[in-house]
């Protein structure tokens, strides 16, 4: 057997391979589910479908979660395009969330709402940006390993979140912040959905709209802007970048600040539009999942939305079968894990060609 690198693969074949991988993954998942619950897998998948699309509310939840996941992926895109392993989205998101909650808790009703939003958004962008900029800075100057640096920054952010949760806990002793601005004079202040109309779908509609705009903007930034071009050149060859007069260090720092800022913005969305609270699970591992999403989508924001949709669908569906068939909710992580393994593995067949050696004469 001989393995060689492929020059490229036609688009339809590539998608066929990926589709095949997903189908195979669903089959394996079906086998796992069957082994555990001994039910007709078709029923189980029907139940999953119901869990994701069953009611209008469920669809809104699906849209909301997939959009937040995509938002983080969009944030990671410029860093990955530069071949910079930012695995610190979890932390960047959390610090963005902390800043958002800070203004909501302390300044709701004290400043005009529009100003409150400006403060929330700007500070979330800055906080996330700083969290991304630091590893970029150290990479640029001392070539400090960015994977390990951003990983540590995650946990510093998590502890920082715990610190503020303890500080802002409400009611005292609950060890949680509770829903911010739930009632009274400041009812729903700082909730995005409350700006124009009310209800959860207003919140989530805003999330979807904003993230779609972000996706378009990021697509344009990466593919049509001068900075996006510089990122791509640096990612492929630092020497070529230097040759063309691109200042590589600056690109590292600038790009990581942007990457972190968007992840911080995802934290703003998670707090202001979704949970209206802050906790260590505000990011909830999505910062890590988004890495996989961004990588599999090859940094294309629209493909990210597709992959996010698939993963969120599996997540919602698995929760549904968990409740329908009396399993626990962690089944969704297993199901997603299997799908991701298969999609990851399928990349091999896109990049390499396997030839079985002909018998020797």
């Amino acid at each position: 057997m001989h393995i060689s690198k492929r020059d490229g693969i036609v688009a339809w074949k590539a998608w066929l391979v990926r589709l095949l991988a997903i189908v195979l993954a669903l089959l394996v998942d079906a086998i796992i589910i069957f082994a555990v619950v001994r039910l007709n897998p078709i029923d189980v998948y029907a139940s999953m479908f119901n869990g994701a699309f069953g009611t209008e509310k469920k669809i809104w939840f699906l849209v909301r979660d997939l959009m937040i996941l995509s938002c983080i992926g969009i944030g990671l895109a410029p860093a990955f395009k530069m071949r910079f392993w930012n695995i610190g989205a979890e932390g960047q998101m959390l610090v963005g969330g902390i800043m958002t909650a800070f203004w909501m808790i302390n300044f709701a009703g004290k400043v005009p709402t529009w100003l409150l939003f400006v403060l929330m958004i700007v500070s979330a962008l800055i906080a996330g940006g700083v969290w991304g900029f630091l590893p970029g800075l150290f990479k640029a100057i001392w070539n400090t390993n960015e994977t390990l640096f951003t990983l540590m920054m995650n946990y510093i952010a998590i502890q920082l979140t715990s610190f503020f949760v303890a500080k802002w806990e409400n009611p005292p002793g609950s060890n949680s912040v509770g829903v911010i601005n739930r009632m009274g004079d400041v009812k729903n202040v700082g909730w995005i959905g409350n700006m124009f109309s009310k209800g959860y779908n207003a919140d989530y509609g805003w999330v979807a709209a904003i993230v779609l705009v972000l996706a378009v903007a990021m697509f344009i930034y990466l593919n049509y802007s001068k900075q996006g071009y510089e990122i791509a050149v640096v990612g492929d060859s630092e020497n070529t970048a230097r040759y063309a007069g691109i200042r590589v260090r600056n690109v590292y720092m600038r790009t990581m600040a942007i990457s972190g800022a968007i992840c911080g913005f995802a934290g703003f969305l998670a707090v202001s539009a979704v949970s209206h609270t802050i906790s260590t699970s505000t990011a909830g591992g999505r910062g890590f999942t988004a890495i996989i999403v961004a990588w599999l989508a090859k940094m294309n924001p629209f493909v990210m939305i597709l992959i996010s949709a698939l993963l969120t669908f599996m997540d919602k569906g698995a929760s549904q079968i968990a409740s329908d068939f009396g399993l626990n909710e962690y089944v969704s992580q297993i199901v997603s894990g299997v799908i991701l393994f298969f999609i990851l593995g399928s990349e091999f067949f896109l990049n390499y060609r396997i030839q079985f050696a002909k018998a020797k004469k």
Partner: protein
Amino acid sequence: MEGLLSFLSSFPTLLHSGVVFGTVIMFGALGEILTQKSGNLNLGVPGVMYLGGIAGLAASFLYENVFCPGHGIEPVAWISVALSLVSCFVAAALGSLLYSFLTITLRTNQNVTGLTLTIFGSGVANFFGGSLNKLAGGVGQVSVKVASEAYRAFSFDLVATVDSWTERIGFGLGTLIFSYGFLTYVVLVIAVGLWFFLSKTRYGLSLRAVGENTATADAVGINVTKYKYLATCIGGGISGFGGLYYVMNYIKGTWENSGTIEGLGWLAVALVIFATWKPLRTIWGSYLFGVLYWMFFYVAGLTRSSQEIFKMLPYVVTLFVLIMVSLRKRREDQPPASLGLPYFREDR
């Protein structure tokens, strides 16, 4: 002053807690050092620890609560322990095998594959952990009493004797050193053994060559693929014991899904950096991490919020070490040079 005194008096207890958590972290880190020395950066450590923990627990549970009652016999401690140890190792190694197959044979990205393994492993563990809880009749009810007690057993006589020797200094040295289950000492043997393997044997030399300069290792005839697979799978098995230790020794043979294992798993990754890939340094490093983890509990006058700042210490210290290492550029402290890179011998 009073705060300092109370802190000092509680110091032995703090050290004791530090050793327990330190052991979990040390298992994880030692396995990951072995893995990373082959050039594989496996961010699936938390997932692997989860897999090891649940598999060990499930094996003991099935033996003690299903097999033995079914046959009307009393569970035997050593059998239950042996079953859980073997299952733990096998399950964790299998998880790493999956990672190895994807990254080494299919050449997928190591970071992404490792993270997926963490998601998958914690899913599997918490899923079955939850099911076990349900089988046992409710949360916190999984009881593998026999195994857990065996895991935590130590010689009271020895502890009492040594304590009495050190009575005069008001410090229970026996309690501090001898009051843990056997795995606490096994991990030290593994640390020394790993150090010996890496620095004193030809196989260790070959393994390090694979992680440092894969092409050179290949050129002198070392079977790169075999080394990578073996190091990653055995490393995963060792990391898995961290999860088992947590389950059996710390939460006494039950299951909880508080996410503590995941947190400790990431600390294990941090410890690898902190110890600059040296097994012997993980010994004091892990106890230091364990102590830092619990410090907040023993420093008087901390509010609940400032306690959280204290818990940040292990990560901040690790970050500091990471920066210093890249700043000083001492060659012996650097990560394996091929860490994270796929290897593909294009021709032949």
